[in-house]
């Protein structure tokens, strides 16, 4: 171990946000994302999607957003993907793997993907003016608390996004009720 690294460890610096982690996680996310749409077998595609979601969770951790990473693992990788696999296992894989994979709306998808790409590129090009250079330096220890303060407010004061948050939860409640009513003929 070289002396520079040694001193970094002794100073208590946690070397988490190294570029190598980013490259590995981003490469994994892209590679498994490509696998999701190219695998013929639906279960393989679902497994690749789980890898994508987990590596994106790792990227959130690198951005000092541990709460978002944890929720990503619980909700997407743990909950939704289990339901996905549940449904996929009931589908006849033999037949579905012989069907045409990309149907006639692929030009629309291509246009949409290009538009999204253009948006991202413009955000990167113009980003210096729009966003601060390094973003808000969030101290890792209070990220969850900061989210709570923004959503619910503190000390009797309403949070910045309380109204929007409540509206979103109401919308989700309506969606849940709609799903129950649509699937159950007799309640």
């Amino acid at each position: 171990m070289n002396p520079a690294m040694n001193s970094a460890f002794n100073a208590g610096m946690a070397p988490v946000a190294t570029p190598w982690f980013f490259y590995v996680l981003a490469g994994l996310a892209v590679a498994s994302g490509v696998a999701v749409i190219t695998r013929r077998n639906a279960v393989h595609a679902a497994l690749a999607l789980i890898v994508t979601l987990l590596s994106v969770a790792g990227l959130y951790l690198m951005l000092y957003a541990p709460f978002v990473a944890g929720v990503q693992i619980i909700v997407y990788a743990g909950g939704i993907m289990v339901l996905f696999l549940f449904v996929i296992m009931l589908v006849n894989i033999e037949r579905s793997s012989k069907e045409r994979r990309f149907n006639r709306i692929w030009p629309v998808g291509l246009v949409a993907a290009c538009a999204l790409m253009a948006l991202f590129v413009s955000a990167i090009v113009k980003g210096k003016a729009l966003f601060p250079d390094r973003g808000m330096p969030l101290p890792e220890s209070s990220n969850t608390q900061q989210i709570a303060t923004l959503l619910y407010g503190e000390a009797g004061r309403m949070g910045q996004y309380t109204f929007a948050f409540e509206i979103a939860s109401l919308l989700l409640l309506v969606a849940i009720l709609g799903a129950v009513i649509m699937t159950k003929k007799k309640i």
Partner: protein
Amino acid sequence: MPNFIMSYLGSKVTPGEAGNQFWALIYVLIIFAGVAVAVLAMNWIERKALAHFQIRLGPMRVGPHGLLQPIADAVKLMLKEDIIPAEADQFVFWIAPLIGLLAAFTVYTVIPFGPSQAVSDMNIGILFMLGVSSLGVLGIVVSGWASNSHYPLIGALRSSAQMVSYEVAMGLAVVSAILMTSLNATGTGTLSMIGIVQAQQQQGVWFIFKFFPLGFLAFVIFAIAMIAETNRAPFDMAEAESELTAGYHTEYSGLRWSLFMLAEYAAMIAVSSIAVTLWLGGWMRPFPNLLHAPAWDFIFSLFPGLTFLGLAAITFVGVARMPSQSFFKIQRIGLAVFAAVLGFIALLLLVIAVAGRSADTSVAARFREGIDYVYWFVLKVAVFMYLFIWYRATWPRYRFDQLMKIGWKVMLPISLGVLIVTAIVGVIFS
């Protein structure tokens, strides 16, 4: 390099927080070895206890009182032919046990065996534990599908449905415990595993007794849901041997099968330690605030040594009661050696307890403290592990519709109610 290794020894935080990879790795290895030994021991205890529940003897032949049976089993499983069915999905079949094992062992990074006796203290600790342990079901689901066989597929479908429905009640019970952590001066709760135990220490009460019966109800819901989460009896629908031969691992054999077993037991220990951390005061000994005189500290620090002394005494009784035929000579010597080893460990622990009785910063005092924390934590987890066996011996398996009915129509409303009432009571009394 030695300086880098030694610099951690004086610190009062986890190696992860201190950024010390070396000690983090050492802790990981200790935990891995400890869990592996615990799984072996659990294997023996489960067979013995189940046998005694049913008035049988259980394993008696391999070693004295069958003590070497788990090792013999492990050797057998490793030497057994590893069969992959021809029609199975090779890659997924191969990777499924590893998914379960990875998920079960990853959560051990945040389990707090003591205020600094954990690999790392994440500020999303409990969220991380719930999330990663819920990934374990992917291994079961995927293995059932990859086997390309009817029984495993049914087992996997049952397992995923059961897991998804019990996770809801479990999560709500956990949230009501996390709400209780915010009832302090600053009004800020925490998701960190170490922070949750420290919150119980500050409030001077284990959360199972807080706002009685609210904390107790949440604990009971979690205790039921965690059995369903780990697919243990009476909720072992995924591997119901009377209906599905062996459920999701029907087609597995040899080492791969043993990986499933290892993952199951590791997950059982992990969820038990979540329950211990959230409701039973984690590493704290009984009455840490009430009986906090140095004399009480000393008395409680004798417990680890006395426990091993008791085990050694039981083993010596076993040696004395061994039949006196020459056939049992080797078994008797082996058991006597085992008893002597237990007695030696007891002596060592007692010496450490006596040497480190003054609360200074000497190495002995630090060791005594660490042993105390780990002992009380492991003791509480061990009670849960015994309960798992007890449940299995006591209750018949649920039917699947009963299981779903309990999950959605009983546990979910109760846990929601407990959560709401906890929030109201917390606001009124804080």
